[in-house]
């Protein structure tokens, strides 16, 4: 499939010498949800801001929908809606006025029906005449999303959409993102909540120190880097492991009452051999369960690995 955003060798060095982005290459596919994961200061916001035209790149090229973001900025930007991280809103404007303003700014003819539908969808309709400063933080976040969607963009950037947002709004937002995806909108979100990426994304990119360390299909990423662990609860605690079990990477814990077997989910495991062997040694297993590493564990492992 034709990528909707193509990023080639994108770099940004700020005038003070800080290198926020280091030769990033990335292709974003039409209609996907891409989550950019990374610690604070990793370069996520700089990457988004550069694509959206708020930060000028110092090297490299970005094309949005086939249009160069610098030479053909009008056509490129028309396709994009941006919800920035900061809650920057015009305090004295009404919700209706500010959303209509955004639509006009992006060059679209007024369409009150569409704005109404948008506000209803975001549970903002009964607040349409309220001044923005009267709204709660969560409501302001909804207003910013409405502004970003006011011109019916094909691509939506959500920069830390759920930072400081309560559980209810977060669930609403996930719901909305899924609905947008169904309509074919491409969504790029940054987050440092790994559960968000895990819940939402089709693909996950990990950024640290201005470098895109990897971009993978979420399931592949989890499978590839995922460590699985078999946890065996023993009937009677063991003092030490019998020699016969030396061939397995086993670990004894909880005063010998639990046996941990770590294995790679991509490799064939040796559980089938392990269990009879345990029985042979007279080790009775009371219960067992497996545990798959979450993205968070994968992520922490990656970032640690890069630092070493």
């Amino acid at each position, binding site marked *: 499939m034709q990528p909707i955003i193509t990023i080639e060798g994108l770099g940004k060095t700020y005038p003070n010498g800080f290198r926020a982005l280091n030769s990033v290459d990335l292709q974003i596919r039409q209609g996907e949800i891409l989550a950019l994961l990374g610690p604070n200061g990793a370069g996520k916001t700089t990457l988004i801001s550069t694509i959206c035209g708020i930060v000028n790149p110092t090297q490299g090229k970005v094309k949005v929908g086939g249009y160069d973001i610098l030479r053909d900025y*009008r*056509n490129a930007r028309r396709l994009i809606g941006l919800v*920035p991280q900061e809650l920057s809103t015009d305090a004295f404007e009404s919700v209706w006025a500010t959303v209509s303003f955004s639509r006009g*700014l992006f060059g679209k003819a007024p369409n009150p029906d569409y704005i109404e539908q948008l506000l209803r969808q975001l549970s903002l309709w009964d607040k349409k005449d309220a001044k923005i400063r009267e709204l709660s933080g969560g409501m302001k976040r909804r207003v910013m999303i409405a502004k970003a969607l006011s011109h019916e963009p094909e691509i939506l950037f959500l920069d830390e959409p759920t930072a400081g947002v309560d559980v209810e709004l977060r669930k609403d937002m996930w719901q909305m993102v899924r609905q947008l995806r169904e309509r074919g909108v491409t969504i790029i979100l940054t987050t440092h909540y790994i559960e968000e990426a895990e819940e939402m994304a089709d693909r996950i990119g990990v950024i640290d120190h201005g470098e895109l360390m990897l971009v993978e299909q979420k399931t592949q990423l989890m499978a590839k880097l995922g460590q699985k662990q078999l946890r065996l609860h023993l009937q009677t605690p063991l003092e030490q492991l019998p020699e016969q079990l030396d061939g397995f990477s086993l670990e004894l814990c909880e005063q010998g009452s639990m046996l941990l077997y770590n294995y790679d989910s991509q490799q064939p495991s040796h559980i089938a051999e392990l269990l009879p062997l345990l029985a042979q040694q007279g080790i009775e297993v009371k219960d067992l369960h497996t545990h798959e590493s979450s993205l968070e564990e994968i992520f922490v492992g990656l970032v640690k690995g890069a630092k070493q």
Partner: protein
Amino acid sequence: MNFYGIRAIYRFEMARTWRTLMQSIASPVLSTSLYFIVFGTAIGSRMGEIDGISYGAFIIPGLVMLSLLSESISNASFGIFFPKFSGTIYEVLSAPVSPFEIVTGYVGAAATKSILLGLLILATARIFVDYSIVHPFWMLAFLVLTAVTFSLFGFIIGIWADDFQKLQVIPLMVITPLTFLGGAFYSINMLPEPWQTLTLFNPVVYLISGFRWAFYGVADIHVGISLSMTALFMLICLAVVAWIFRSGYRIRS
């Protein structure tokens, strides 16, 4: 051309004007009325005519200019400074609008507001002083040209300012003195040398002189020179604005 974009910015700025009606219209009208009462009616009645014009009528063009300059600058500078300050500028920067369209929206609204204000002050002046306008077309032309030029200048100040103090310092410390010394209350021919020559370096002299010529047909400086100087200042402002957008100075990192 993104006309909807220009209209959105223009309307947004005008809405701000109506929201702050007292501050943006009523207070300049009130303060100018005070000038007319003090200088026009009270003191003016004891002063002789200047160039055959009663003193009360003589100061009208200068007083209108005084408000026009300071209001154009403060409207336009605040209009662009505040989004920068509150962070809402992100939206304008990420929108498919060209620098020309952005400037047209912001500067157009600021200029509209100060032109309305200028006309309102002229109407108010009528209550206190009797005056005539010999060249109404040129009066309007100077009004519009000055409003646009100084709104551009205000836009530059708004981009340059990174705190509220810087926003105030140019109008207060530069524009107000230049206007008072620019012949708002006297004819520069009344000045002794070397002040008469020095005063020619004050750009506001040309604005007031040209504007007064449109009212009464007499001027300290030939109207052609006044017009050229105003146009020149406008071109300088346009060049600076063009440079700001090309370099991204203080708006795009």
